[in-house]
Each structure stands twice: as C-alpha cells, then as structure tokens.
C-alpha cells in the first residue's frame, strides 16, 4: 500500500495554528504594549480562550442547552490509558504531545494516506456543536465542541461501496500512558467503531476544541470522536488511525465485557446496564437536592437518528 501524505508545505513553513488564530490579538497586544509600555501577557491572557470563538454554529447545535462550566468538563474525564481515576488521568494526560499529529486513513477507500491534522483542518469547516454528552456511568454534561463533520472528512478519501464499518484507533504511547505500559485491564490501544451510516451522519463530528479553544489534553486532544447519541466511551480520544472496513471490528469495551458494553451502545433509558439502571442521569453542575435528569432515548437525538435503527430490537442490539 502506498502511504501518501497530502502535506504539501514543509512543517517549518507553516504558522502554528495557535499563533495564526491569535494573530490579531498578538498585533493588538504588541501595539498596546508599545503604547502603554505595559507587558503583553495580561492582554493575551484576557483573550486566551478565543481562538475559535467566531466559528459558526452547526445546524445540530442546540442553543437551548446551557453548556456545563468548562472547569467541570476539564476535571471529570475518563482516560483509562493514564489512570482509572479521573483526577489522576487529568494530571497525567498533560504529558501527551499533540503537535505534530497525523492521522492514517486506510482500508476500503480510494485515497488511503497519512494526513497531518493541520492539513485536515485547513480543508474542513470548523463549527461549534453544543451537544449533550451522556456517560455509561450515568452522569451527563453539555459540551460546546468545536469540530467538523466526520462524514465530510471521509468523503475526501472516497469510501468504496464495500466500506460498511469505520474503525477508530487511539494513540499508543506506553512510555507516557501507565495503563498501556502495565497492560492493565483493557486491551490497548483503545479501539472504537461505528457503522458507516452512523459515521456519515451529520451529528457525528471529530472535535478539536471546546469552548472556542483547543481541546484540553484530558478531553482527548488533539482529535476525538463525538457521537452525541451514544454513551461517552464510544467517543474515542486522541485518534491516530481511521480504517474503513467490510466487517465490524472488535471494540475495546465490548471485548472487555461483551454482555455489558455492546457495539451500538446507544443511550437508552429502557435498556439497563446489567448491573445498574440507565433510566436517569446526574447532570454535572447541578446542585445538591436537585432531581436527576430523566435519560432520553438516543440522548434526545431520536428525531435525527432513530431511523438508523428502524426495525432493530434495541434490547438485543444494545
């Protein structure tokens, strides 16, 4: 197989997107600094969170949803490669190097290749998608993701008609990921998969940011999947490989406990996990003595995605 790279400009000549996106702020800051004689940093710090602040809203972004405060999202994430404990995972995830980052796209496609993330970002339209996020652990949040449509990326590599499943593989770096190093619990690297129609669905995005800024490392930087109608573990973090396949691959959690974590893992209050109910969820940011939220079928995205599963017994295909 020929691994082509679409990268046409040497890396050294490309402006760091962080600097590029902040160019106006930097110039303003420099101007301000020369005018007032003050340091640059306070001005920059004030605008630190704004690199993708102006991206348009996606059609599926629900404005009625109030995003969960960023601090809560940043400090409550499962990242089993680093630790089974959310607090430690957040600290250890800072060790990951996200730049440069390339993604291999292969399998049943016309144009397989290895693509630099910055090249992909130049081709794709970034949008803000405010989505609900429901974890299989029965908690939920609302995240203002910044990302692009997975379907639109897949179209650029021209999937063959034989492509029926999309397999995602996360980064394998045992030297910085203790649980990979110890071969602990799950089989590494982390693998997830979607049916091709699920992958092409406009709700499915690849996120590179949240709250208008670059994705925090613990939340899956530099590139993660977001499938808002499925339990959170389907939304794989730090993706390095996307393969289009004829047959469904074995996914990580499904392999670990097949009767507990199904391939589909669609949010469904009527289908309990074998050991706990999925009927309600605790929303992050809600106060003491506030009732739990009643979980919705397909996490409230039934109108958009229910047709993907028409005629299927959701109890069987959980």
């Amino acid at each position: 197989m020929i691994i082509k790279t679409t990268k046409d400009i040497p890396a050294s000549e490309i402006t760091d997107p962080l600097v590029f996106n902040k160019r106006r702020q930097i110039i303003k800051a420099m101007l301000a600094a020369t005018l007032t004689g003050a340091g640059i940093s306070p001005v920059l710090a004030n605008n630190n969170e704004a690199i993708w602040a102006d991206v348009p809203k996606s059609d599926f972004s629900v404005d009625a949803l109030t995003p969960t405060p960023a601090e809560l999202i940043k400090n409550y994430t499962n990242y089993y490669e680093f630790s089974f404990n959310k607090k430690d995972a957040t600290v250890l995830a800072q060790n990951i190097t996200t730049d440069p980052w390339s993604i291999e796209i292969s399998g049943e496609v016309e144009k397989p290749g290895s693509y630099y993330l910055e090249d992909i970002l130049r081709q794709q339209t970034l949008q803000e998608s405010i989505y609900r996020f429901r974890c299989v652990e029965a908690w939920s949040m609302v995240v203002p993701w910044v990302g692009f449509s997975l379907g639109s990326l897949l179209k650029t590599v021209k999937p063959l008609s034989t492509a029926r499943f999309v397999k995602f593989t996360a980064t394998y770096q045992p030297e910085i990921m203790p649980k990979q190093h110890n071969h602990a619990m799950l089989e590494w690297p982390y693998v997830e998969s979607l049916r091709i129609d699920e992958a092409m669905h406009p709700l499915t995005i690849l996120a590179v940011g949240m709250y208008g800024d670059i994705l925090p490392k613990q939340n899956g930087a530099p590139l993660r999947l977001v499938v808002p109608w499925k339990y959170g573990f389907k939304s794989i973090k730090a993706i390095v490989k996307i393969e289009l396949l004829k047959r469904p691959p074995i996914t990580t959690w499904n392999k670990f406990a097949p009767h507990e974590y199904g391939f589909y893992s669609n949010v469904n209050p009527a289908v309990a996990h074998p050991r706990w109910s999925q009927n309600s969820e605790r929303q992050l940011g809600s106060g003491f003595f506030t009732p739990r939220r009643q979980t919705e079928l397909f996490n409230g995205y039934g109108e958009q995605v229910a047709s993907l599963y028409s005629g299927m017994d959701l109890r069987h295909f959980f």
Partner: protein
Amino acid sequence: MVLRFNRLRSLTIVACLIPLLWILIDIAFNNLGSNPIQALHIRLGDWSLRFLWLTLAVTPIQTMTKWRGMANYRQLLGLYAFFYATLHVLTYLLVDHALIWRIIGIDIIESTYIWFGVLAYIIVFLLALSSPKWAKKRMGKTWKKLHRFIYIAAVAAIIHYYWQLKGNLAEPLFYLIIVVLLLGFRLAVWFKNYQFNKMMIPTGQRVLSVQAKQVVMPESIRARQAILQKSRLKRKP
C-alpha cells in the same frame, strides 16, 4: 482507672466523627470535584465499610492480643458503621434523588448492585436497633444469633461496592482482602473450637450436660444432679 477509660471512650467517639467533619469541610470549600453528589455519596459509603471492618476486627484483635478492653468499642464502632451507612442512604434518597420516588424505584429495581446495599443496610439497621444493653438482655440467645448476621452484611456490602465499578478491580481489592481475613479468622476459630470440643468432652459428661439444660426434667432428678455436681467439684483439689 475508670476516668481514663471514659476519656479514651469519649476520644474515640469524637475521633469517629472526623471523617464526617472532613467531608463537611470539603463541601464548604467546594472541594468535592465536578460531581460532588457522587463524591459525597461514595465517601460516606466508604466510611461505612471501613467502620464495618473495624467492628469485625475487634474480636480477632482481642483473641490475638488477649486484651479484653476492646469489647466496649465493638458496639461503638458498629454504631458508627450504621451512622455512616444511614448518611449514605440519606444522600442517595435526598441529595441525589430529591425524593423523586418514581425514579428511585426504577433505579433500585434495575440496579442489582443496590440490592446488596439494601440487604446490608437492613441488617446493620436491625443490629443497631437491638444494640442497647436492655435489648441484648431481653433477646437472650436470639441476640447472638441476630448479631451473627453482621457477616452477611459484610459480604453484601462488599458485593454492593464491587458491583457498581465499571470494571477496574485492582484498587478496591484491598477491601476484599480485609473482609476475607476477618471472616477467615472466625472460620479458623470456629473450626479449632469444633475440633477441640470433639476431643475434650467425654461422651458421658456431654450427655449429662445436655440433660441439665432440659427444662422438662423433674425437680427431683435435677436436685440430685446438682448435689452430684457439687460433690464432684468439692473433690477437685
């Protein structure tokens, strides 16, 4: 001596409240993380488990160290296990579910791990209810039988704990080791006593002792046996 003993007891009573104080401080300073309700719920449950293990540890420690002073603390520690378990249950019902009974009902029916928690709590509740001295006196032998249910509570509590984990079992293994050690100790003691009894008690005497226990025995025979036993005791140097 009495004064010192009481002081130690008061100190223990206060010390056992430190975990609660610590949790309250964390609530006050917003130190419970992104999901404070779950953190509160889990921490109270953890302390209930720890006090249950401490309660179960009293007897083995007494046996091994031959120090009898701890018997009074077993009740105290057990009551604290009940205390933290009650706060754990109240957190679930009030803080997390705001007493929405429909959702609570579905949650309990669908969550198998909660069944074990409910079983453990019912047992600990009954043990706490029957823990005062007058209750012990009134219940007689039933009391001891009832309080043996603490072993079932311990096993149910550990299943309750394990069953809610997503799958990672390395860290909480510690709790399991402790409960196995504590229950194993009792099994070993029971087995040893069983063997010992079988060896040491002559068959004839055992029959006699069984007869002595029977209430239906005519007064005359009982009196004669009492005299016999007395004379036997006298004969011993």
